[in-house]
């Protein structure tokens, strides 16, 4: 299919599912985590960003219309409002990404340190273009704006890890290491972010409720 037509299809606005139609997929722990996150703010609505991170983890790294509907239901907001927030922020994925998202910074300092050559090298090595996923679903190659580790340029982000001072050799080693890894970088990132927002007391309470 023509690439641009395909892109338009992807960005077509999904139909909001009705609340009664969606199977709720948040696990018991996730619901408790959401309660703990909501308690950090004076109102439920403010927990929308953390809740979307939770949903991204629970739905395997992508905010599907069902995920958005579930967040809307649990926070008592409208589908449109949650969708509006989810589409504003670039770190929420609206489409299924590969198991590992390779996010290469090409902003000013990284550009000066040669990140465009690394991007070309990755495109050639993986056989995909920028924004595409490898056919085996392992790698998605994207370009990001400044990751603010310009002192170690060129920088790239894989899930919750920054890879600094990248070179062709380091890139080869990284790809080999990832191929042998079981982690799912996108959900791993979402999980890390949820855990950062939960205090030690929250985590202890959730653990005790499970016993």
């Amino acid at each position, binding site marked *: 299919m*023509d*690439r*641009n*037509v395909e*892109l*338009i299809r992807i*960005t077509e606005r999904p139909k909001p599912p009705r609340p009664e139609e969606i199977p709720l997929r948040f696990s018991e722990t996730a619901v408790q985590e959401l309660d703990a996150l909501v308690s*950090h703010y*004076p*109102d439920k*609505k*403010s*927990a*929308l*960003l*953390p809740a*979307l*991170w939770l949903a991204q983890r629970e739905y395997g790294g992508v905010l599907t219309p069902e995920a958005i509907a579930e967040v809307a239901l649990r926070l008592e907001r409208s589908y449109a409002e949650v969708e509006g*927030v989810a589409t*504003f*922020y*670039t*770190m*929420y994925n609206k489409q299924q990404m590969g198991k590992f998202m390779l996010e290469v910074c*090409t*902003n*000013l*300092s990284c*550009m*000066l*340190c*040669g990140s*465009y050559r690394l991007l*070309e090298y990755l495109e050639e090595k993986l056989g995909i*273009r*920028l*924004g*595409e996923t490898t056919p085996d679903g392992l790698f998605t190659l994207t*370009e990001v*704006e*400044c*990751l*603010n*580790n*310009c*002192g*170690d*340029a060129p920088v790239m*982000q894989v899930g*919750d*890890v*920054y890879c600094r001072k990248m070179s062709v050799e380091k890139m080869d080693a990284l790809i080999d290491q990832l191929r042998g890894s079981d982690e799912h970088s996108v959900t791993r*990132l979402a999980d*890390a*972010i949820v855990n*950062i*927002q939960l*205090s*030690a*007391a929250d985590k202890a309470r959730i653990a005790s409720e499970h016993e």
Partner: protein
Amino acid sequence: MAEYKLLTQHIDVPDFYQMQVYESLGGYLGLKKAVEMERQEVIDEIKKSGLRGRGGAGFPAWIKWNGIPKDTSKPHYVICNSDEGEPGTFKDWELMHKAPHQLVEGMIIAGYATLAKAGYIYIRGEYVECAQRVRHAIDQAYEAGYLGKNILGKGFDYDLYVHMGAGSYECGEESALMSSLMGERGQPRLKFPHAPLPTIAGVWNCPTLINNCETLSVAPHVINNGGEWYAQIGASTKNSRGTKLFSVSGHVNKPGNYEIEFGTSLMELIELAGGVSGGALKAIIPGGSSMPILPADQCQDAILGYEELMEKGTMVGSGGCMVLNEHSCIVTFAWRTAEFYAHESCGKCTPCREGTRWMVQILERILQGKGRPEDIELLLEVCDQIDGRSFCALGDAAAWPVRGMIKQFRNEFEYFIEHGKSIVADRPEWQRMAPPKHYERYNPMRYDYTYGIERALAGKG
């Protein structure tokens, strides 16, 4: 003049992010001293110190601290802005990653001085590694009784939360950050004088103190050593006091964060960072990508200070100092800057949303070798139409660098338009940096609405 290490004094001590090590090196003494003082005395110390906001604007910190109502008819909040997104800046990353307790201590002092109920540290979503350190520090502070109920037996209750962003540069703008904290799209709100100041009606319509991560990290040192002591540092400048972290990156031998006293010269900072690498100096952007560029000849006598750099036509900004050597193409640099702002524009106001896209498209046309002689004037006109007319400072920040680059390096733009290629196009050094030929951003949300969709519908791909 060498580095003046105040915030970064112990940053290389192993395990400095742990409570024990931090306390053994004088940590939390500032807080213990602060809770013995009257709240107004704490604010007065900040006033004496002459501390100015380190996030970019350089607004005097004490005015914000003092502006919070002295009663608690509404709950008060303190927010730390760690949504560091300015290209070239990585000071907050280092402060949070290596000295998270310093920030936590600053947040508690700010909370005490402003009678706050809770504090929120807004960290950008990508900063997982350092946010984990901050989380760890907060948990340790709760354990040690510096947070929670009845802190240090003074009957002061204060909670600290971490709120993670999700990838939006715009959320570094204070009103957009508050929108984001309230679970909305990160778009700015009406500002003073059209709306009350955040200190009166900020987040959740309550009095809110919002400061940059570095500003809050300074607070323990000001309280510990006294505002007058702090005001002596950098006294050679007009109105900049204390130290500032500059993040030096780009073409230097030793990129990294360097803390210097205000009044140090720009070239000394570059010397600290090991000097220019890969060729002679072409230009420096001293304060992050939003600030106008300084060509090499003007860098020689530039002094780092808010007013001093303003006289040079640029600003301290967030301290993201980017160095370009002689093999860099300014036109491409301008395009990449504009590209960044077009991506990050939140879309709320027309001048910024449309203007940034037009700037990118004009610059892209020049890069493709199809530039027209009138394009330079057109770019300047677009810049004028954005500057001062946008809802928040992002629009200004998009216009200043492009206008600055045209002003300082007009010959390069003219050369590019005339010859259809860069003035440095044939140098191998530049070829290692240049974006690929026929390079196109993949994101369909970017420009396709102006020409891509039509092209796609025509089936031309």
